Structure formats: structure tokens, C-alpha cells
């Protein structure tokens, strides 16, 4: 019996079976270990590296309860359908306070309950809230964003005054809880375009000798989150007075003399559970509210930090959590789509036990393959986001050590930069040592460099400068595209308000995530600079070797494919840094965004896929230690391995396409002119030569252009392109195509697994 006839036969037999028998029959036809249930907390804790941190596990549960309880009820009840900050929306704030979400940002001595860096903590909260509604996540996180300038760069006095005051009130405590907002964005013409230019102004209002100067702050904000209820605002302003130097951020409090106008609610179509207004401030503020303090030099107030320095320190952390919001949406879409697909035809024709009844739309390969793509994207983006968040946690303490070191040496500005460059050189030296075989290393020097926290800082900083924009750009940008795909898999249901999992709303919300805290162009611009950092590229080269090593143990992950794609990307980057286009213009230039931006996009694909592979390797290595995971581990790992393969193939495809376009696309295509036709042959000429050089006719036709007698040239654009100088690229590209071998088989297996995986009877939140 042929394969195709047995497939049809199996389906016919199954009609007479009950559900259990049908599934057994299906399992017999293709039996392999695969995913049994949707991944639970145990699996996620291992993959995302918080299996040993119970305080985070508790926080996840607390945030989940809020998300799938009051937040979900509010969304299901139409709470998103207004621009205003309504009492129903405001009622979420006490839930955030009571569950620990608000205090998670704070250190224990400030009223919090989690010690140490908070990047990963906040990432988990954002993920859990965005699983249901990202507006709720934004609402919770925007308060932290408002305080972040003080947290990152504030004076000790400012930190002591404002940060603990944000802690939720304890029973019986009488004080006003601070709810903060961050005011950077301004009305047009500058809105969302250029954060370096500020229309908001600060000038000296009064400066009595020996007293604190009083400032007059004039700021109009646009799209300011939390502004419907915030009582403290950190505002970016520029000097409008020659007695104040440059720009700064200033803390504004409700109640200061002057105008505190919350303004009108922004008519946004997304994230409606967060309050967004266009406020107007004209307030008299003591100068000690300049974030980070100031010094007076020659009668001029010099802020210790410009607004640019502060927002750089703030955004490089908070952007990661935004990226994870979209990851949560994608992963949250899997279960509702499976439930919808399986139940699509129930209630119509087809009895229980038939494929139509049991599998519904899951009988169709396309529906399954598209869902596999969504899932793979969600996993890769979550892996990238959480890795970036963990990296920032690691970096935080090193950054403090770096600041202390520079402070001790009294180094600032260029001098500090120079010193850090030396550390970067040492970091490169360490990488070179580590790339040698163990026996050939200078161990003393290796130990010395490894013990230097500033060397480590340099290495991690170069990674953070890439991972943060990569996560923000790829997770949200490509994530929004995949959310559209998720919506489409729900048919007409997807674009209704009552779509299970709120997928339509999530799709719209993803677009905001791609925009705020620096839209996609800003992230690409940053990447185009940071991805060329020598130290990053040295580590990237080591990652290629690392992927090959993983591939030798876990060939099914596609790690080898990814390694080749990474090699291709690196080759292309190095090539474009020296190459010119057909007109002799430089290819890699900050104004040449047609080159730099797509290469940044390609890098993001590779980074996300790589991190996904690393997370699966971690799950596989540690899963056996947890009895709750061990039983299902082979199936879970097998499924995730296939999902990885799907994602790496897609990433390799994207990178290959982009690199090929850039490498070839800036060369002019040969035309039928004298310059290009010198290698062409005439058919009659070849006939003559064949007698002298046997085989030349075939070779010439294979490698060159031949025009027949009577023709001026063959009917095509011009002679085929020659790859002089690009042979290495062409070889790599061909190799990459070959590396895709087996990726569609992996997709078939993953798709098959989706038809069998156990789901809940209903979602655990209302819709």
C-alpha cells in the first residue's frame, strides 16, 4: 500500500472510531515523542533562568492573577473603549499595589520586597500583564519609567524623597503615594521624531544670593502615559536662559506654584487601559529638583546630567520590557487559536470521533504551519527579551563599579571614554586568549583579565548595546506582523471584540509597542552603530563557533544553519564597510540606511533564533532535575527543537535575502555593451573553436552568454552577472541554501504536534 492510499484509508477508518481510538490510530501512523501539554511554569522557569528564584515565581503568579482577573474582566467588559481615565481603569491601580506589582520596582529599604537589579523582574511583570492586555502593563510600568530618571541618575536626596514615596501605603499609613509620569515627548513638529530637540524650556525665575535658585519650567507634553493621575512628573527641558547650561530633566510636583494642567486625553486606538494625556506645565520649581543635581560655574547652573544622558540610561533598560509585551501576545495567542481551530466545525455536520469534529481546521496543513510560525516567533522573541533583561541585571552592578572607578580616578567625558576604550582592548585580548585551545592559553593573563570587572563590563556593555535595540525592534516590529497572522487564523472572529484572547486588540497594541520608547527607525539607527563595535563582533564570531558546537549535539535545532547565516551576515557587514556602490559611493554610511538598516534587521533575526536555541539547550540540560518536567521532557524538547529549526530556517532565509540584496544590489547589472560583452561568445565562433578546444561549447554556455547567429544578443536584461571578488559570498550563500535541508520536515512534525497537544477546556481568563 502506498503512503498516500494508507493516509486516506486511515481517515476513513477513523470515522467509525471514538475520539480516543482516532487519536491512537493517528499516533500509530506517525509515532514519535512530542509535546503533550502546553509548556507550564516549570518549563518557562528553566528556559528563562528563574527556576531558583522563588520570589520571582511568586511575583509571576501575583501578576498573572491581576492580569487574568481584574484586567481581563475590564477588557471583556469593554473597558478599553474610551480614551478617558475612567474609574474602572483607575481601579486597577490598587490591584497593582496590593499584588506587589508597584513595589517590585523598589528595593527592600524603599518599601519593595525584591533586592538587586530589577530588569528581569519588570520584564516578567510586563510579560504577564501583556498576556492579557499590554495597556495594563504600560500603566504599571509607566510609573517606574517616571521614577527611572531619579532611580538611575538622581541625587541621594532625590532618591530618598521620591522612590520610597512610590511604595504602596501600608495599613494605617497616612501619606500621599507618588504616582509618576515621564514627560519627554512634545507636540508637533518634534513629536516622536527627535528626542534631542526640546521645545520645553527652563529659565531662572529667581536667584537670591546664597539661596537655592528658583526655576520656571515651561513644558507641553504629548502622549504622556499616566498623566491622567500622576502627581509627580520627570520632565525633559532645554535651557532658555544663559544662566542655565544645556538641557536637563526636572522633577515637577502637583501643587507647585503655576499651571499643572493634565490636558486632554490622547485619542489613541491602543493600550487604552493606560492613561495618556497631552499635559501643560508652567511651574516654579527649586533648582534642587534638577535630576542628578547641578553645580554652579561662573554664575551658571550646570546640570550634572543632560536630558540625553538620562534618557539613554533609562530607555536602554525599559525598551526590553516593551519588546517582551509583544512576545507575550504571540505566545498568548497559541491556545485560543488551537481551541478555535479544533472546535471550528463542532455543532455542524460531523460526529465526535471524526477528523472534522476532532481536528476542525487543524486538518489543513496551512493553518497548522502558520500557527507554528507564530509560536516559533513568540518563543524566539521571548528568549531574546528575557536574555536581554538578564543581561541588564548582570550589567547593573558592573556599571556601578565602573562609575565608582571612574569617580575615584576623577575621569569624566573624553578622559573617561579613553580609559574605557583601554578596557575594551583588554576585553578583546581576553577573547583572543579564550579562543585558543586550553593548553595554549596564557592562563595567568586570562585570570587577570577575567577578574577585572571593567573588562567584563566592556564585554557585556557591547552586547547590551545590541540586544536592547534588537529586542525592541524585532520583537515588536516582526511581532506585530505575526500578530496580524494570528488574527487572520481566527477568521472573522479575530477582528471582533469578543475574540478569545483579545487577539484583535493585541494586534493593534503591538503597533504601539513598535513605536513608543523609540520607534523602529531609532532602534535601527542605534543598531547600525553598535553592531559594528569590534568587541561585539568578536563575541559574535565566537557565537558562530558556539552554534556549530551545539549543532554537533543537537543537529535538529538548526544551529548549524544559523551558524552559516551568521557567517554570511558577518561577511556582508565586513564587505559593505569597505565596498562602494556602482557609482563609487560608500556603502556603510550613517546616511545610507538602505544598507545599514536592513543589516540591522537581519542581525535581529539571527540573535533571536540563537537565543531560542540556547534556551532549549538549557531546558534539555536542566529539565531532568525537575520531576514535574522530567516525564514530559523528551517530548517538550523534541517539539521545541523542531520549532527552533523552523525559526532558524526563517531567520537564515531572511538574513540570506537581505545580505544578497545588499551585496549584489548596489552593483550595476551588466548591459549588452562592449564592456560587459567581452566575455560573450557567438555560437558560430564556438563551433569553430570546438574543433580546437573540445568541450568549449558546453562550458561557454554554462558560464557565459552565447548569442546565436543573426542575434545581437539573447533575449534578457544583459549578460549574466559575474561574481568576481564575491566568490566567498556566493559559496556561503549556496551553502546556506543547503543548510535549510530538513527544516520543512521539522515544520511538519511541529504542525503534527499541534494536533495532539492537550489544551485547557477554556482559557483561564474571560474574553
Amino acid at each position, binding site marked *: 500500500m502506498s503512503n498516500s492510499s494508507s493516509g486516506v484509508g486511515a481517515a476513513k477508518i477513523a470515522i467509525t472510531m471514538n475520539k480516543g481510538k482516532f487519536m491512537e490510530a493517528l499516533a500509530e501512523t506517525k509515532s514519535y515523542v512530542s509535546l503533550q501539554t502546553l509548556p*507550564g511554569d516549570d518549563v518557562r522557569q528553566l528556559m528563562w533562568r528563574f527556576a531558583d528564584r522563588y*520570589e520571582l515565581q511568586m511575583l509571576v503568579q*501575583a501578576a498573572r492573577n491581576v492580569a487574568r482577573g481584574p484586567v481581563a474582566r475590564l477588557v471583556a467588559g469593554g473597558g478599553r473603549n474610551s480614551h478617558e481615565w475612567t474609574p474602572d481603569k483607575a481601579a486597577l491601580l490598587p490591584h497593582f499595589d496590593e499584588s*506587589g506589582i508597584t513595589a517590585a520596582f523598589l528595593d527592600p529599604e524603599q518599601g519593595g520586597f525584591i533586592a538587586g537589579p530589577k530588569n528581569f523582574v519588570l520584564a516578567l511583570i510586563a510579560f504577564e500583564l501583556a498576556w492579557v492586555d499590554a495597556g495594563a502593563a504600560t500603566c504599571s510600568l509607566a510609573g517606574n519609567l517616571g521614577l527611572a530618571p531619579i532611580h538611575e541618575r538622581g541625587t541621594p536626596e532625590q532618591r530618598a524623597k521620591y522612590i520610597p514615596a512610590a511604595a504602596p501605603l501600608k495599613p494605617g499609613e497616612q501619606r500621599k503615594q507618588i504616582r509618576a509620569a515621564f514627560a519627554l515627548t512634545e507636540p508637533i513638529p518634534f513629536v516622536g521624531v527627535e528626542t534631542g530637540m526640546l521645545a520645553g524650556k527652563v529659565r531662572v525665575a529667581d536667584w537670591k544670593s546664597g539661596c537655592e535658585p528658583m526655576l520656571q519650567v515651561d513644558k507641553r507634553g504629548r502622549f504622556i502615559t499616566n498623566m491622567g493621575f500622576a502627581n509627580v512628573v520627570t520632565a525633559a527641558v532645554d535651557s532658555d536662559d544663559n544662566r542655565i547650561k544645556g538641557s536637563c530633566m526636572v522633577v515637577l510636583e502637583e501643587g507647585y506654584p503655576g499651571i499643572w494642567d493634565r490636558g486632554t486625553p490622547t485619542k489613541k486606538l491602543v493600550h487604552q487601559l493606560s492613561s495618556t494625556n497631552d499635559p501643560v506645565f508652567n511651574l516654579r520649581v527649586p533648582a534642587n529638583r534638577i535630576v542628578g543635581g547641578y553645580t554652579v560655574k561662573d554664575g551658571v547652573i550646570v546640570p550634572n546630567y543632560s536630558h540625553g544622558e538620562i534618557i539613554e540610561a533609562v530607555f536602554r533598560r525599559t525598551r526590553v520590557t516593551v519588546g517582551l509585551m509583544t512576545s507575550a501576545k504571540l505566545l498568548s495567542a497559541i491556545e485560543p487559536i488551537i481551541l478555535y481551530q479544533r472546535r471550528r466545525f463542532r455543532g455542524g455536520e460531523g460526529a465526535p470521533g471524526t477528523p472534522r469534529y476532532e481536528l476542525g481546521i487543524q486538518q489543513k496543513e496551512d493553518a497548522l504551519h502558520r500557527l507554528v510560525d507564530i509560536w516559533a516567533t513568540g518563543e524566539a522573541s521571548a528568549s531574546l527579551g528575557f536574555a536581554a533583561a538578564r543581561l541588564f541585571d548582570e550589567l547593573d552592578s558592573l556599571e556601578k563599579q565602573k562609575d565608582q572607578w571612574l569617580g575615584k580616578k576623577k575621569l569624566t567625558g573624553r578622559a573617561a571614554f579613553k580609559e574605557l576604550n583601554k578596557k575594551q582592548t583588554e576585553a578583546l585580548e581576553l577573547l583572543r586568549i579564550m579562543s585558543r585551545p586550553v593548553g595554549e592559553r596564557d592562563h595567568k593573563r586570562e585570570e587577570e583579565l577575567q577578574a577585572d570587572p571593567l573588562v567584563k563590563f566592556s564585554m557585556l556593555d557591547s552586547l547590551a548595546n545590541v540586544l536592547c535595540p534588537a529586542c525592541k525592534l524585532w520583537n515588536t516590529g516582526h511581532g506585530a506582523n505575526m500578530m496580524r497572522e494570528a488574527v487572520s487564523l481566527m477568521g472573522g472572529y479575530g477582528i471582533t471584540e469578543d475574540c478569545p484572547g483579545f487577539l484583535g486588540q493585541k494586534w493593534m497594541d503591538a503597533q504601539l509597542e513598535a513605536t513608543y520608547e523609540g520607534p523602529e527607525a531609532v532602534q535601527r539607527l542605534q543598531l547600525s552603530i553598535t553592531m559594528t563595535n569590534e568587541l561585539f563582533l568578536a563575541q559574535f564570531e565566537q557565537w558562530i563557533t558556539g552554534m556549530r558546537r551545539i549543532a554537533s549535539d543537537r543537529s535538529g535545532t538548526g544551529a548549524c544553519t544559523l551558524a552559516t547565516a551568521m557567517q554570511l551576515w558577518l561577511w556582508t557587514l565586513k564587505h559593505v564597510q569597505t565596498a562602494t556602490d556602482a557609482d563609487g559611493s560608500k556603502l556603510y554610511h550613517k546616511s545610507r540606511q538602505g544598507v545599514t538598516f536592513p543589516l540591522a534587521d537581519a542581525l535581529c533575526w539571527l540573535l533571536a533564533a540563537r537565543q531560542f536555541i540556547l534556551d532549549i539547550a538549557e531546558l534539555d540540560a536542566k529539565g531532568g532535575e525537575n520531576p*514535574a518536567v522530567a516525564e514530559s521532557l523528551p517530548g517538550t524538547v523534541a517539539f521545541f527543537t523542531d520549532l527552533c529549526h523552523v525559526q532558524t530556517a526563517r531567520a537564515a532565509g531572511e538574513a540570506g535575502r537581505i545580505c544578497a540584496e545588499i551585496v549584489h544590489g548596489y552593483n550595476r547589472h551588466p548591459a549588452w555593451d562592449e564592456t560587459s560583452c567581452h566575455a560573450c561568445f557567438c555560437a558560430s565562433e564556438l563551433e569553430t573553436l570546438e574543433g580546437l578546444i573540445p568541450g568549449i561549447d558546453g562550458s561557454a554556455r554554462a558560464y557565459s552568454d552565447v548569442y546565436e547567429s543573426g542575434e545581437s544578443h539573447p533575449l534578457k536584461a544583459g549578460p549574466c552577472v559575474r561574481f568576481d571578488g564575491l566568490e566567498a559570498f556566493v559559496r556561503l550563500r549556496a551553502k546556506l541554501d543547503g543548510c535549510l535541508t530538513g527544516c520543512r520536515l521539522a515544520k511538519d512534525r511541529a504542525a503534527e504536534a499541534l494536533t495532539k497537544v*492537550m489544551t485547557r477546556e477554556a482559557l483561564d481568563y474571560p474574553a
Partner: protein
Amino acid sequence: MNTVYQIVVCAGIVPDPLQTLEPVASPSGPALKNEMMLPAVLDPWASHSLYEAANLAKHLPGSKVWLVSLGPKAKLQQVMMTVAQKVPFELVALDGPGGGFTEAAEVAAMLAEAIQAIPGLDKSKLLVFGGWESASRGAGATMQMVGERLGIMDQFQGVDELKIAADGSLEILERIEGGKHQISKCAGLPALLGWATGNLPEPKNNPQIGMVNMRTVMPALQKAKPVKFAGDGLSFVNVALPKQLRETRIVKDKSPDDVAKEIIEWIKK
């Protein structure tokens, strides 16, 4: 009143009720398909008793709550990440099977042994709480047997309310047949109460409570005693999920009175 109570709550874990539950045959008897992989929750009936216990302890300074829980250690730990944030307690963990396919007598013996081993336990202050039913497989007998083994004669099942009088006596509202309640009076401790739903809502998660509880929860889980059941004499003839019964009619233009009459007729049947 300055009574100090020692309240021991017996509460197991069960698969999240939203999960698809499919009985399967395993080498050791009936089981639920993929049970170890399904997310678990504290048994809802026993959860009510935990909230009641915590509420009682909160109002009687010096009183303390222990949570005695039998289940696979790894699953227990996951459940504790939520439960430990609800109310203050000290965990006594037993590492054993958590499904509904264990013999109630054996479970009761293990629980009673664990309770007796709690250091400083004073029977004159002891209240044992638990659920009168279970969301996994309600034998409806486990708590009674725990009480018997502990020598507690005053037992109440289907409890919805407990009031403590000034003299320390207990007034207990128990569910009985026909949707009615029975009020019982109990002179003093020890007593065992198998709770129905009680009257308290599920407490909100409180991370401060969670952090305090975790100081004892994690060590308790680490030293959880492994428990094995002999299962002697236990056999299952059949295992099946309760059948869903759905009788839906779409009726238009019927007055509320007529609808009410029909419901009353249906209840009388």
C-alpha cells in the same frame, strides 16, 4: 477572649479545573493523562478551610496555622508560589502522589502522622481543618479518618461557618440534606472541621506575606518526607469523568412568573 489556637489545615493539590482531564490506565493503577504536566492548584474545598483558618488566627493573637499538604514535591512548590502569598502559614510537606486515585485511609494515616509530628502541638488548642470534599476524587472520608487517628471525637462536615463564643465553645454551621444548615455547639477543643465553602473570599496575593512564608516553605519542601502507598486491597472497577449534562431550551416571550414556576417544578422533581 484570649484563646490561642493551633490550626492545622490539611490540603492537597489537584489539577487546575480548567484543564482537560482524561483518565488513563498506568502501571500503578488509574491516573490522569499527563497529570504531572498539568498546572495544579490547592484543592478548592481545602482552600476555603485555609482561608477560614487564617482569618481565625488573625483575630486570635498568638494562634498559628500549619498547612499539611501531600503531593508531588515539584508540583507542591509551584502551587506554593501562589498559595503562600494568600495567608500566613507554616508548611508541612509530604512528597507523594497527589492524584485522586489513592486510598483515603492511607492518605489519612500519613496526614495524621505528619500532624502528630508537628513540634509543640497541644491537643487542647488543636483545630484540624480540611475540605469535606475534593476536586480530584472526593472520597468524603479522609478528614474523618484523620480525626479518628488523632483521637478527635468532635467532628463536623460540610461546615460553612464557625463562631467562637466567649467561653471558648464553638458554634458550627453544617450543611445537611435539602439545602439546609444545622447548628451544632461544641464545648471545646480539639475539633475537626471539614469545610464546605465557608463565607470568605479568596484573599488577594500579598507579596509581603509570600516572602515571610517562603522562609519556611522552601525548607519544608526540601525536607519533605517521601511517602509511598501500598494500595493493598484497593482496586478501581471503572474510572470516568462526570458526564456533562446540558439541557438548554430557547424560549421567547415567557413571563418571569412562568419561568419561575417552571424552575420550581423542575426542582421539585
